[in-house]
């Protein structure tokens, strides 16, 4: 049966960034010529409730410039935290919150690492990374040094997760290129510095990589780098970008998938004894279906076909497709062509992405943020600014591209990070997209949908406070859906931890099963739809 959109005709989304006040943020990422790779990568977004007022706030990570790094007297660009006013508008609270990241920001992950009930923020930088402890009074303190999380050089994707079930969030930090400006070739100087014959920024091919970092949370505000101890050995120093934690093999333990640019991905399988093994090739998600290394960047995780296994969408460079890996019993197959996603993604250079049921029909749509890395792409027959894309789930394993007029994604920019969450708390999932060198998009879901929904916020007691890593399975209208609480996904971004399920016309959730990060399982039933529940571990939903 081909799926019919539940959403009424008209654009699905309207960009309300201006109205909401988010256009006060303007991303800065080097100079406009983008002579160096650092200037092309852009930054992420986090959607989270930083002040526990129940509303989803917005953190837009910002880059910087070589000039600013070299000259402290120049004005700082910094990441900006916007508090949700609850009326569709936001106010910049960066300064008073103390969440001031003046480094060249790239990625972000949100997690309550000290389980004090307040969400903390970790930002990766080109330079030292930054951990901001949430003080619980609307302010943050930079505790990077005390925590031992500085990292170094160029970190990108990052994500919290509890790999050893000790109830504390550990941290994976992907790193990209060992970048020393004076040691970098300039555009056009060799074969790695040309795009379709036009001189462009060099790399990452041919440049030295950096090993990823894996930190264990020691529980006293300090972290210990444990990559060697745990077997997470990035010995070939891959070009790491996106990072997600997911239980790909349904064994109840969180695994880690890392999207590596221009080489094979990593899938670190949790061996349930505090160590990991790298199994991406064996699991079928290291390379494309024909064994090619692709330019892996963003990652969407979701069970798009509702078969009980989490699938992966990995976004890629232009002149290649973004790859849909279907998970069947812990084995991934590249089903991009079968899903109808081959030709439609070929010209786009894709970044942020997510499987989200926007129309609440019980089947997840696919969102992809696009934009080239080379401004010179315009001279080479492609476009620096590209439209973002929304794909309708046809419910038979295939997707179809929704036209820009219908999706509302008519404005082309060079988009990067994207995060998802219900900014009005009304069961309608919105998207915030960080666009390089300009203001962001706030795609507010505009279409009217008859589909019903349920929102679930978990509160861990014997596990980490936001239950990051918990698996939730709901059954409604005869259909079972799954999802997990994640601290980061898409491209270097962090979406709201509240899980959202569309349930079409179901009035009742027949069953909710929660597998908490500590392995305990509990069930609830008979939940009414069209509302959000807070489920505290061991207690009834409220």
């Amino acid at each position, binding site marked *: 049966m081909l799926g019919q959109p539940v959403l009424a005709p008209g654009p699905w989304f309207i960009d309300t960034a201006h109205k909401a006040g988010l256009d006060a943020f303007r991303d800065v990422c080097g100079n406009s010529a983008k002579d160096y790779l650092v200037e092309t990568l852009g930054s992420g977004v986090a959607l989270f409730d930083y002040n526990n007022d129940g509303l989803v706030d917005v953190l837009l990570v910002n880059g910087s410039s070589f000039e600013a790094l070299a000259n402290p007297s120049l004005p700082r660009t910094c990441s900006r935290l916007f508090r949700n006013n609850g009326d569709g508008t936001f106010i910049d609270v960066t300064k008073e919150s103390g969440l001031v990241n003046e480094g060249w920001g790239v990625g972000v992950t949100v997690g309550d690492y000290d389980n004090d009930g307040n969400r903390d923020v970790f930002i990766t930088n080109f330079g030292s990374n930054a951990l901001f402890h949430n003080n619980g009074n609307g302010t943050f303190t930079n505790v990077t040094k005390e925590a031992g999380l500085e990292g170094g050089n160029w970190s990108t994707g990052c994500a919290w997760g509890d790999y050893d079930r000790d109830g504390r969030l550990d941290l994976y930090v992907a790193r990209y290129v060992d970048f020393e400006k004076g040691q970098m070739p300039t555009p056009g100087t060799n074969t790695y510095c040309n795009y379709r014959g036009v001189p462009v920024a060099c790399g990452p091919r041919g440049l*030295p990589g950096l090993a990823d970092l894996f930190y264990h949370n020691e529980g006293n505000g300090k972290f210990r780098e444990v990559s060697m101890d745990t077997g997470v050995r990035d010995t070939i120093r891959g070009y790491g970008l996106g990072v997600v934690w997911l239980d790909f093999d349904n064994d109840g333990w969180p695994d880690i998938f890392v999207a590596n640019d*221009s080489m094979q991905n990593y899938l670190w399988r949790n061996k349930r004894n505090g160590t990991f093994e790298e199994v991406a090739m064996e699991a079928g998600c290291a390379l494309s279906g024909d064994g090619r290394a692709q330019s892996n960047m963003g990652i969407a995780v979701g069970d798009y076909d509702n078969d009980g296994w989490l699938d992966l969408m990995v976004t890629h*460079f232009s002149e290649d497709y973004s790859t849909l890996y279907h998970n069947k019993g812990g084995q991934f197959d590249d089903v991009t062509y*079968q899903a109808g996603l081959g030709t439609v993604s070929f010209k786009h250079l894709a970044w942020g992405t997510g499987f989200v049921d926007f129309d609440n029909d019980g089947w997840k749509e696919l969102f992809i943020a696009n934009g080239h890395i080379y401004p010179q792409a315009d001279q080479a027959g492609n476009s620096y600014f590209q439209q973002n894309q929304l794909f309708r789930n046809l419910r038979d394993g295939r997707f179809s591209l929704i036209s820009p007029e219908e999706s509302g994604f008519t404005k082309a920019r060079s988009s990067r990070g994207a995060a998802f969450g219900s900014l009005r708390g009304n069961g309608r999932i919105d998207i915030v997209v960080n666009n390089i060198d300009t203001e962001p998009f706030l795609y507010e879901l505009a279409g009217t949908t008859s589909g019903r929904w349920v929102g679930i916020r978990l509160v861990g007691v014997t596990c980490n406070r936001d239950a990051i890593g918990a698996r939730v399975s709901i059954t409604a209208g005869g259909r079972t859906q799954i999802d997990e609480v994640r601290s980061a996904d898409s491209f270097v971004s962090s979406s709201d931890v509240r899980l959202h399920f569309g349930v079409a016309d179901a009035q009742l959730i027949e069953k909710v099963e929660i597998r908490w990060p500590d392995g305990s399982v509990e069930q609830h039933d008979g939940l009414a739809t069209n509302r959000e529940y807070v489920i505290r571990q061991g207690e009834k939903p409220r």
Partner: protein
Amino acid sequence: MKSPRRSGKQLTIRCAPHVGLVIVALVLVSAVIHAQMTAIPPDQLLTIPAGESKTAQQWLSELSGDRQALAAYPDSAKAHGLVGRDLHALGETDAASQMLDRALELDPHLTDALVEKGSILAGRSEWIPAIDLFRRAVAISPRDASAHLWLGDMLLRTGDFDGAFDEFKVALSLEPKSFRACQGMGLVHLQQGNFSAAIDDFHQALAIKANYLDGERGLAHAFASAHNWPEVKECLIRVLEADPDSPSDTDALGTALARMGNKADAEKQFARARELSNNELLLLRAKGDNNWGVTLRRENKKEEAAAAFRRALEDDSHFCEAHDNLGGVLWMLKDVAAAMSEFQAAVRCDPSLASAHNNLGTALLYFEHNQDGAIAQFHAALILQPGFAMAHLNLGKALASRQDLTEAEPEFRSAIIIDPNLAAAHVGLGLLLAMKKNDLSAEAKEELLRGLRLDPALREIIPQSYRAQLSR
């Protein structure tokens, strides 16, 4: 005006020739054509349609004749086009490109020149200007299968799948035995998710040209998309017999074996694929360091360049060009013994590296005065790369220094045919002709004067007696 298949020779950057001394070539890695990954790997380029199959020596002979024709008809578009074609066939793409540009200035409708020039641009990944040239070619000569094939390939690379398919279809109708047209159609069908049609296309390509590796690869991919794992396995076993170090095919074979339930063999393939992929990554990094070394060398930062080449060898000790380039820069730093050692290492590491043979020959000639050894190395370089003008020149010099004047003369002439702007070759020929007749003949004088016009500094190596005659 058809071209043979290109061998993807190294782009060689030569140091400025120094009077009577060594010419050291620095090799910029060939690497991959593109800065970023493409869906269709460069080695699967549909490439230039097979035309006349000629040896490089035959192309050299063609070039000689065509240069004479060009001298006789300097305003002939066709003559320029033919020289451009010959130079392209000999791997001299920059010179070829200039000739073809001139041909097209003289006659914008010269289809063969449009296709030849387009193919050079395609090889540089300049797909959009290449498309323009191929479109012009098919508009002028709609029955030129090669132009349609090229256009289809470029459209495929830029994501115009329907347009590409149409071009491949026309190419196949004009040339029913075009396995590349079948391959192109298969690739389009694959992208569009039409696996059964893709399988038919790849089968057809293989029926026309058995053992066509890209055809087997395409077939494997199509079967994998259709989850026909036993067929995938068969195709990839055939591919890996011919190309055993391919990480992508090894991984894909592992996947097929795993899906067939053969876990043990699958794991072996994955382990091998992982090793090959890692090696590939290290090689890419070595190439990156090598490229950086070349950049530093150009900026005359010789010590830093040497360090970059050494880093490349640390990344991948099997990356032979780095030995060659390190030798080159050590030579410039006047550490001749170390340079010689690197050139020898380069030749040992990759006996097919023409530049290394040329450099080793040069070192043997000028450092050890080992004429026979040098001549052997220059010969080796020319067997590998017959269009290597510098190696012809060096061989000519080595032979002349051994008083083999008769054998030396054609080498100087070959160098000039390939690169008429090679000043040292003109001067060398002029001196040789003078030596042969013990007098400065008109031809010798003309060659010396040509050489001096191109590089006045070469005056220093011309004996005083001849210099006086030249100024008369």
